């Protein structure tokens, strides 16, 4: 489909953010756009909501969540669920042979298992296989840390970041984890994480918005005459 530059008739203004421009999207827009894009890239509706949550959380904390999510979706789209999801057991989770885990599926599953023996526990480590774009794990780990009073470190060969909640450590973690595809280990100890403070809202580039929109458009249905006719009033509005 084409988007005329001044088609004022669509329920979304992000298509109008044009080449070379960037925009501060509201968190609602980020969550909505990223959810649709994730769905368009093949995630289930419930996981797509998790993707929207993660991107909006990152934006709230000053990190360009949509850009990281797009980088992941671009790589992962089309891969079957079995190639993206972890095998779960206490102390060690694994990626499918030769594959990297989807950080959204992994993050959501870590949350699901947070109260179970297989999940992250204070005073222990959880080895996890290779993860795509682990920066996208941060929102999920922050939720677990806050609800279970944990201080969580992400460790990989050549690096380590601590998620204590402070804005500067968050930015450091995001920077260090951006674009990585590495096996990671999560270690946790008891402690009260600081409440992560909101960061400066990052501008999202027109290129990333357009790319996410392209994925999001895959969730939509081309119009037919009958659907157009049924959508509005059957009587005149000039009365």
């Amino acid at each position, binding site marked *: 489909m084409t988007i005329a530059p001044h088609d004022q*008739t669509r329920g979304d203004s992000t298509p109008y953010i044009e080449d070379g421009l960037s925009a501060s999207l509201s968190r609602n827009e980020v969550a909505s756009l990223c959810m649709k894009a994730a769905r368009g890239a093949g995630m289930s509706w419930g996981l797509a909501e998790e993707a929207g949550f993660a991107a909006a959380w990152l934006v709230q904390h000053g990190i360009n969540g949509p850009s990281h999510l797009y980088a992941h979706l671009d790589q992962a789209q089309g891969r079957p669920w079995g190639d993206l999801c972890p095998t779960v057991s206490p102390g060690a989770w694994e990626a499918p042979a030769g594959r990297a885990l989807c950080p959204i599926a992994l993050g959501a*599953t870590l949350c699901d298992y947070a109260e179970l023996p297989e999940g992250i526990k204070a005073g222990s480590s959880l080895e996890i296989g290779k993860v795509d774009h682990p920066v996208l794990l941060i929102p999920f780990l922050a939720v677990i840390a806050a609800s279970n009073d944990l201080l969580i470190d992400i460790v990989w060969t050549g690096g380590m970041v601590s998620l204590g909640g402070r804005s500067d450590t968050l930015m450091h973690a995001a920077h260090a984890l951006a674009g990585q595809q590495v096996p990671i280990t999560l270690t946790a100890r008891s402690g009260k994480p600081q409440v992560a403070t909101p960061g400066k809202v990052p501008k999202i580039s027109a290129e990333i918005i357009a790319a996410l929109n392209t994925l999001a458009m895959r969730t939509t249905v081309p119009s037919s005459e009958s659907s157009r006719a049924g959508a509005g009033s059957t009587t005149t509005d000039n009365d």
Partner: protein
Amino acid sequence: MSQSAHDATSQTAPFRRPASEVMHLDRIGCSHPTRLSFLRSMLRRLHRENWKVDRPVWEVDATGSGHAVYRTRCGDRTYSLVAFAHDLPEDMRSDRVIATAWDATFTLFDGEPTQADIVRLRDNVPLQEAGRITTRELTLARANRSVRLFHHVVGALSQGLQPDPAEIADIGYLMRTTAVYGSGKFGAADRSEIADRPELAAPFQVEMLTVWLIRAFTVDIVEHMAVVKGGDRAVRLDRDLRRTLGVGNSTGLGMAPFIVRHPVLLNNWMIAREEALARVRAQSGATQPAVAGLRVALDAAIENARVWTSQHPLQVPKLAALRDDLRMLSDTVDTWDFGQPLPWDALWRWSVDVLSLEGQEALLSIMLEPHGDLVDDLADCMSADEAPSFRIDGAMCVRDLRTILKQNYSWALSIDFTTPENIARFWYVSEEKLEPRLGERATEEGATLEQPLCIARLVAELDETLQERDEDEPVAAVLLAHPEHRYVMRRVQIAQNHPFAEVQDNLISADMLPIDLLRCKLSFFGATRFDPRSDRWVRINLFQGAPFPDEIEQGYLP
């Protein structure tokens, strides 16, 4: 509102209607606005807190083009409606989201706009979806004239005459909004950024404030055009006549998915209203002022039903039933024994036996009306922080999940989704306009891109999966094997503590009427004159009979 505010040990518990009685399309499609509706609670706050409203800017020319600013001050805060008036050719006027130009466009600015803000807004607000606003803006809206009434009123006022009250009663508004966007749309401030302000904590308060100020603008612009046309001969609109004008609204399918997508919010709206009814029914007696107040509210409802017109075959019989019901109710109330034990409950029980759903739901609204002291605090329980219910409890075992299904979703599990009529429709988003639409599965393409709005069917699919799983298994493991159930799993766990979270019907069946969903939501806004234009498109009126900004200080309240 949490479950604890609705706990089973409370004195009102025996008087509460169960969700299985309330949450059906045919009943929510008969919803009436109540004193808990969002525009009513906003007006009460404005009045109670003595908000000051003025219009510091009016720069509109002889063609009716320009801008105006309406300033609302409450405590330390100011909210300003910036209105842009346009000279719109008739052939461009459409209420659809497909419209590209409007008679007027608006934004609610957080604070007082500078000249630079106005310039920025002028470059964006008139473009609506094709523009961008910022976190300084709280809403984006547009409105079209009622061509007939607008011309009639301008014509009369310009000649020094008042317009015909019958013409005004027939239409009820000078302009109707075709969209009022909030909550971070198009770059506006997110709901979460303003939800902690007491004056905006209740749902849709910025949207209601926007529409209320638009109403003032619609009268100012006709008076302005009357002066342009008639010069010194022109008069202002009579204040009593003015009060009978509301703001029209046209709305379609775009609004329908909202109450499905926000189960916690829907629960809180419903539970507050139901608790209000239960509190009134639970009273052991009736005071004289309450009985007198009931009569006043009933007479107002009778008058409202008299002037409420619709041509639509779906609404005509409902209106006839409502008028019959109100007549019967009026006769009954005249001779009702308010000295009997539990007189309100007895009246309610009488209505359930005798009245149609329209009449019963109207009586709910009428019975709340004289009981502000008893129920108005419930308006503070109608917002929702949805974030806490987003996380799934993965440790819950399959057995417990199935118990929730049995307790809360038996209505869904009893639907046979193998018959064509029960899966006749599918909800989708149109590529062309990004608006929600409803397709016919048998004849239209696109069902593979169905939106997850038929909760009943998703629940049935989940139930089928669960039958194959070990009862002691945690749901985390089910989700690992079945990521397709994550969306509905979240809802089922929400329903456990939010009994009114679901519309308990099949939303893709052949006979489903989307306007029932619309009426439910619009009644919580406070909408009146529900007038369907098709089974999925409706016009309503907001703020009809309510005070104007210059009347709020005089203590006039609807």
